[in-house]
């Protein structure tokens, strides 16, 4: 899209673009350097005592201690456990919601729709508090249940959209060979809808992993609480920043990894992989002309499906 907006740059435009690029890069790098320097500067507190900067060794020496890493590992494990359990329940709830939402009887469909809308419009945090206080489940199950219900509602909506987008013939064919309505749903419609919506479901899993950190607020000892609050209480306040920095990096690593997996799977088994012949879409997954019109189709453009998609 972007390339369509302007001509291929000539020598003058290329030079100008390079110049702006360099100036921009210097400005951004300068800003980062200033930030790092400001964090590293010694600070004088109100009573005149000088404290070391944030990168000083005395603020980072606890990371030589294996016990610190063990605690952080436990926190990370608690986060991942909550995410995994909630994800399984969310999928189950999502399937149930999608059935209720696509039910033929109005007496099922309308109440399910209202409940679903209610859950989708609620902050997850409020749901956690509700479950924690009303059902007195403890913070772990409050977190799991709220995450499962909220993400289940969204996955259910996605699955319903997937079922609805299927060609009508799928369902008719299923019914005409004598399957019951439920069998058609389970054996014909659902597998296709699931595959079509897999990218959305996986993206929702990333959201779920991120949202486990909300359990921090209802008091669940997950990565943030263990890594920053407990450890800086134990080892002293001067490690506060370094501990936060490490926890942040761990969270980023977990989420980026899952995002990349989600994107990879989406590329491999996106909607187009569900069709026998992706009509009108070339093997790089583009609609012809989407990347600029080309009057002549180059020979061999349709060979080597796999390595083309790899790019």
């Amino acid at each position, binding site marked *: 899209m*972007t390339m369509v907006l302007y001509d291929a740059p000539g020598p003058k435009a290329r030079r100008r673009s390079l110049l702006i*690029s360099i100036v921009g890069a210097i400005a951004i790098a300068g800003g980062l350097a200033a930030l790092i320097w400001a964090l590293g500067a010694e600070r004088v507190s109100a009573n005149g005592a000088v404290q070391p900067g944030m990168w000083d060794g005395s603020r980072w020496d606890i990371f030589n201690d294996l016990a610190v890493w063990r605690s952080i590992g436990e926190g990370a494990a608690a986060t991942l456990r909550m995410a995994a359990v909630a994800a399984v329940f969310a999928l189950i709830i999502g399937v149930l919601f999608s059935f209720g939402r696509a039910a033929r009887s109005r007496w099922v469909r309308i109440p399910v729709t209202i409940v679903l809308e209610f859950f989708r*419009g609620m902050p997850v*945090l409020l749901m956690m508090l509700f479950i924690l206080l009303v059902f007195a489940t403890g913070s772990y199950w409050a977190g799991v249940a709220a995450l499962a219900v909220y993400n289940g509602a969204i996955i259910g909506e996605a699955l319903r959209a997937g079922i609805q987008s299927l060609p009508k013939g799928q369902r008719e064919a299923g019914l005409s060979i004598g399957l019951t309505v439920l069998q058609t749903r389970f054996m014909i419609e659902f597998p296709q809808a699931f595959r079509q919506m897999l990218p959305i479901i996986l993206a929702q899993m990333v959201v779920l992993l991120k*949202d486990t950190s*909300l359990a921090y607020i209802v008091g669940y000892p997950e990565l943030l609480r263990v890594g920053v609050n407990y450890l800086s209480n134990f080892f002293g306040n001067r490690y506060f*920043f370094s501990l936060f920095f490490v926890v942040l990096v761990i969270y980023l690593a977990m*989420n*980026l990894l899952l995002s990349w997996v989600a994107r990879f799977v989406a590329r491999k088994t996106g909607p187009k992989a569900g069709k026998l012949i992706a009509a009108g879409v070339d093997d790089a997954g583009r609609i012809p002309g989407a990347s600029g019109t080309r009057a002549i189709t180059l020979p061999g453009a349709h060979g080597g499906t796999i390595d083309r998609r790899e790019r």
Partner: protein
Amino acid sequence: MDAIIENLPLFLRGFWGTLQLLIVSGIGAFIIGVIIAAMRISPVASLRAFATVYTELLRNIPLTLVLFFTANVLPYLDFKPGYMTLAMIGLTAYTSPFVAEAVRSGVNGVPVGQAEAARSIGLTFGQVLTLVVMPQALRMVVPPLINVFIALTKNTSVAGGFFVFELFQTAQQLTNLRGDRVVAILLGVAFFYLIITVPLGLIAGQVEKRVAVLR
């Protein structure tokens, strides 16, 4: 019911806090998001790279960590403008990449033929953008943008966990005071959230329908 009615002033104060958070960080996120989106589609490589890294990083940090940073770490680094402002900064930073993605997908959603046609009749780059691409892109961007703001409304509740008085904090304080009326109080708070999110959702649906007719 009586637990809600006798505490109505507190509910309204919480609601006002939520609205403040929503409006200020909504506007802030919109401005920064549009700038980031513009950087993302600009011809300058270093701006594009910066925008990509910014979006990727901020989208993968949980909101709790962002607000923990603004509410606990920034004051630790001697930056103390008050918890409300700090929460607004955090929510703005967290929401801006989502705005940027919505805007960018809108620009990408304009059929290529439109830009090609505009260029073929001799419009300059600026004219192509302002006269042909942007008017169509912005219209398509409205429903996803509203969805971003609905998410922001729900996300303001996290600020309640970091010393800001808004609806979630109202819920926490009132349920402490009136342990016997927990369900009524929490449903009351839920109602106030729905007052914001449901109309926004209806508007988004309405706009989406209009755009669908046009295409």
